């Protein structure tokens, strides 16, 4: 597909592939919002509605929830994340519940774009993976079920 753009007296031929987009989703170049000062950012919690209190996790596994989480993973997550610690597109899931706080995981699943912008650990990960984690539009219950599955994957009974 070719489009012909005429700009003032300059004629430029631009070949566009399928209406290519400049920024990836979430990176709004026209945003007037200033990035939050680094001091305001809590790297243990991330950005989002979830806190340790609001999550109120039980020390034991809810197997039914974990089973639902496994089904959601099949549809929305398994393309990029292995259950081992091996990287596929994104990092493997093994050990994630010991590397990150549960509220951080919940916030990252439900609110990935602002955290990709600000979280130092995510930014370091992006340098390795080069693919932004997609917002897969999980609702609160679904995200919680995936978290339960992650806990099961890390050996919680």
């Amino acid at each position, binding site marked *: *597909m070719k489009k012909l753009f005429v700009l003032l007296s300059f004629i430029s031929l631009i070949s566009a592939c*399928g209406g290519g987009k400049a920024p990836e989703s979430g990176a709004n170049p026209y945003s007037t919002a200033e990035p939050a000062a680094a001091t305001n950012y809590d790297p243990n919690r991330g950005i989002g509605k979830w806190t340790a209190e609001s999550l109120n996790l039980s020390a034991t596994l809810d197997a039914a929830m974990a089973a639902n989480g496994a089904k959601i993973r099949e*549809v929305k997550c*398994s*393309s990029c994340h292995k259950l081992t610690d091996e990287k596929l597109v994104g990092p493997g899931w093994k050990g994630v519940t010991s590397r990150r706080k549960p509220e951080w995981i919940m916030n990252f699943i439900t609110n990935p774009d602002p955290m990709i912008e600000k979280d130092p650990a995510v930014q370091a990960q992006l340098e390795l993976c080069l*693919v932004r984690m997609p*917002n897969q539009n999980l609702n609160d219950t679904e995200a919680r079920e995936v978290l339960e599955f992650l806990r099961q994957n890390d050996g919680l009974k």
Partner: protein
Amino acid sequence: MLPLASMTNFTILSVVVSADKLSAYGLPSGRLLRVIPVFSVDPEKGWGYSEETKPMLNTSHGFVPWDDLHHTELSQTNGEVDGRWVFGNANNTPRVARIDLKTFRTAEIIELPNSAGNHSSPFITENTEYVVAGTRFSVPADNANGDVAINTYKENFKGHLSFIAVDQATGGMSLSFQIQCPGVNFDLSHAGKGPSHGWFFFSCYNTEQANTLLEVNASQKDKDFIMAVNWKKAEEYIKAGKGKKTTTNYAHNVWDEKTHSGKSEIIKEVLILDSKEFPDLCYMIPCPKSPHGCDVDPTGEYIVGSGKLAALIPVFSFTKLQAAIANKEFDGVYDGINVIKYESALYGEVAKPGLGPLHTEFDANGNAYTSFFVSSEVVKWNIKDLKVLDRVPTYYSVGHLCVPGGDSRKPFGKYLIAYNKITKDRYLPTGPELSQSAQLYDISGDKMQLILDFPTIGEPHYAQACPAGLVTPDQVKIFKIEENNHPYVAKGEGEAKVVREGNKVHVYMTAIRSHFAPDNIEGVKMGDEVYFHVTNLEQDWDVPHGFAVKGASNAELLIMPGETTTLKWTPDKVGIFPMYCTDFCSALHQEMQGYIRVSPAGSNIPLKFSVGEQAAAPAGN
């Protein structure tokens, strides 16, 4: 920095004719936001090429890949634009389409029987009860013998007006009835509103009933007609069982957002009311010089006729028309239809407005804006006193005009767009084929002011506009993968597979940033038909994936998040064929690729598919 959204207060939906697409622009920026394929194929989006979209372009003539879209009409409630749907007409193989403004996609197309050239369409009644379509070319009816001499026009050719009912909950269209009329050319139409709700007005030309050299032979009479149709009365006759069932053949194509597929059905019957048998259904109002535009003002009282060859604009009064009908102030009968006396229906004439009036739109302050093709200008005049208030030139030869809400009961005013037929020296030259031109005028003051020129793709024909706020809140951002009922969906990579059914190979493929699964396929043989059913697993806004395979003789696919779309591919030679994502999706978009191996017919290479499997490293490495 100014947020982009505030630059775009209005959305205009304009019809671009030569490309036969509907395009959405922002106002007042003139920025092109989206091009929507309707009746014509679009390889960029796979429209008409993917297996799912092919049924949408089915007709009684089979698959028709193009048409000549002219007009667009936004749905209304109580005569006000409501932002639910926009309709479009196919002028060649007569059809009407409904585009859903939640997705900006064509949701439904219905063909029109007994018709040829659907021009006076897709105008609607004030609650979108009906979309109408009047045939431009009169032709013998579908159930009559059409193998007749062309010069038997007066005897054998009929004009049919179609009334398509619209389901208010779903938007679903169904051809409710048709009115059979004398053979003339129906040109444009508009519904009555407010007090004239229940009536529809169609301009007619070639009332000479010529079948050749219409340029001369259809310009003989000093006056043709605007036909007033009492559609509420027609509805009563249909309810009372007065419609005649006649045999015909037309396609009705509906898109299903859950299966992400279109379905086409051929319908064999239509209900007809013959205008000759029901004399209180239709009336002819004489209108000077081959009337084209037929526009009803926001109050519903005034009907403006625009004779293409006239040097005045007649304005008819609905109140006077009703009195003339009650008092039988007739001036003869035209092929079974009573002709109202011109003076009995006339409110007045705008004297010396310009040359060649075509179309009129309205503002909320009692003013009308009429385009003049021959004298290349827009003229503003007052509906009550018929005095010309202002005139501005256009560059050049203007056709339709658009005022946001300008044919509704509640015009939003503020802007007027002129759609020009000739551009000439307005932009830098690009060879023999020049850019097409729309011009934006500010009409908020006493004087119209040209504030922007913006090029359009193809001949810009007609447009409608409304405040963006009527459309933007309900936008669909993704299709939920859980609700995807496509028969070949793969909900997750675990369901990705390749299945052989005889010589048909079905690839259940997933796409997510940035790989396909499977991306290595072997065991396809010459003589196979391969169906790539690609499911986009993304659930985030604005992350489509594309799909293409080398040698595909149809098109690429463009798959929205959560959607499944199918490309049929028939390999034409043995070898390795690459496939890849055609829509830039991530930093690793160029890595989003795979291979399919094609072996000779009868080969014993087993069907095999994988993603992420490499050959074992040779020993010693």
